[in-house]
């Protein structure tokens, strides 16, 4: 069955697009991807989403988004899109061998945590290497952990990890943090946290059976390496947009984000819209993602009316 709208992604942008297109009777099909609910599902308290004066847990907020979209007829599937073809109309979207067609597409694939790119990091992901302190911090009670990064999220996660870990060391490749002053102050005033400046991780040592036991650190100036013992390594080195599906199909900016026309969510292909973090490296907030999801829905609705 050919669809009017297929939405790829299920964070605040994708589910707001789903809500609006569902209310416009466009019967949207949402492919939720590998992380239904998006990045908010790996956070705890969300204190800056308007309408929740007491704050709300990230996963709970996303459940509400989803329930609201479904209430008006959005169909949400826990499936990951593996290929797209926007050359001919209707547009084609594949989940493995299953093909779906649609008159319009809304891309809301968001962003994922950046990794260092080491083999050992990939191998030990979930076995002592983590990109989510709020998910995995619990397993490092009274252990020593490292956190890699120098921005607000690294500071926030370092603080959070001190709830469990006995010792937290921040590994940062420069000699100063780019985080906001209030976050740096919190870290500097926390007795359990210390900083290893001008250093980066070259190798993570451990096994799936026994977890992580140390890392090899390289000094960015002298290039000397040392072994630093630890039980876990948490990455907080920023995010990258999830755009692998659209290489050679859509236009990207130099940082790898999808380009949309100013004041709209239109991509370089008419009928294909992008919203949320996949096209926004400036604001990256739940509420701005939701706002742009609404814009995409309205853009798609107008396109469908006129074509």
């Amino acid at each position, binding site marked *: 069955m050919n669809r009017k709208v297929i939405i790829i992604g299920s964070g605040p942008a994708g589910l707001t697009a789903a809500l609006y297109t569902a209310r416009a009777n466009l019967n949207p099909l949402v492919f939720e991807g*590998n*992380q*239904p*609910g998006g990045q*908010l*599902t*790996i*956070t*705890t308290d969300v204190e800056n989403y308007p309408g929740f004066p007491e704050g709300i*847990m*990230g*996963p709970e907020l*996303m*459940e509400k988004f989803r329930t609201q979209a479904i209430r008006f007829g959005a169909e949400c599937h*826990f*499936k*990951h899109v593996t290929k797209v073809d926007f050359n001919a109309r209707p547009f084609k979207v594949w989940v*493995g061998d299953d093909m779906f067609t649609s008159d319009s597409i809304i891309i809301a694939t968001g962003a994922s945590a950046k990794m260092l790119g080491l083999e050992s990091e990939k191998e030990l*992901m*979930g*076995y*002592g290497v*983590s990109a989510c302190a*709020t*998910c*995995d911090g*619990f*397993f*490092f009670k009274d252990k020593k952990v490292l956190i890699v990064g120098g921005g607000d999220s690294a500071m926030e996660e370092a603080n959070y990890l001190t709830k469990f870990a006995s010792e937290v060391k921040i590994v940062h490749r420069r000699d100063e943090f780019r985080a906001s002053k209030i976050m740096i102050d919190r870290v500097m005033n926390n007795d359990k946290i210390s900083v290893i400046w001008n250093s980066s991780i070259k190798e993570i040592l451990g096994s*799936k*059976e*026994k*977890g992580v036991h140390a890392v090899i650190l390289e000094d960015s100036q002298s290039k000397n390496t040392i072994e630093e013992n630890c039980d*876990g390594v948490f990455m907080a080195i920023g995010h990258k947009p999830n755009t692998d599906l659209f290489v050679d199909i859509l236009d990207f900016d130099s940082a790898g984000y999808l380009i949309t026309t100013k004041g709209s969510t239109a991509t370089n292909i008419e009928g294909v819209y992008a919203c949320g973090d996949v096209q926004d490296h400036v604001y990256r907030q739940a509420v701005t993602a939701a706002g742009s999801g609404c814009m995409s829905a309205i853009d798609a609705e107008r396109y469908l009316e006129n074509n």
Partner: protein
Amino acid sequence: MSENVKEFTSDNFSAEVIESDTPVLVDFWAEWCGPCRVIAPVVDEIATEYLQKVKVGKLNVDNHNQVASQYGVRSIPALLIFKNGAVANQIVGAVPKNKITEILDSVI
């Protein structure tokens, strides 16, 4: 939660999982874990579809942390597949259902 999904604890783990005649899928989870909520309905479905073939249950890591640490669980959701009392395979993180069934099929 489906009635086909059992609740494993540190008290019944040995009898229900280690000494089980059929393979067992154990879902290590916690209330505060967002991705665990995502995978819960998938685990429910698998419990029904693999009824008689695979025993499926959940273990709350907050309440039974010693079992989690015994098996080196450092990230959840973690799905450990036990066969003849030993871990035959494991899946860390919320992954789509076909990935889980693929690995499950290769083990049983």
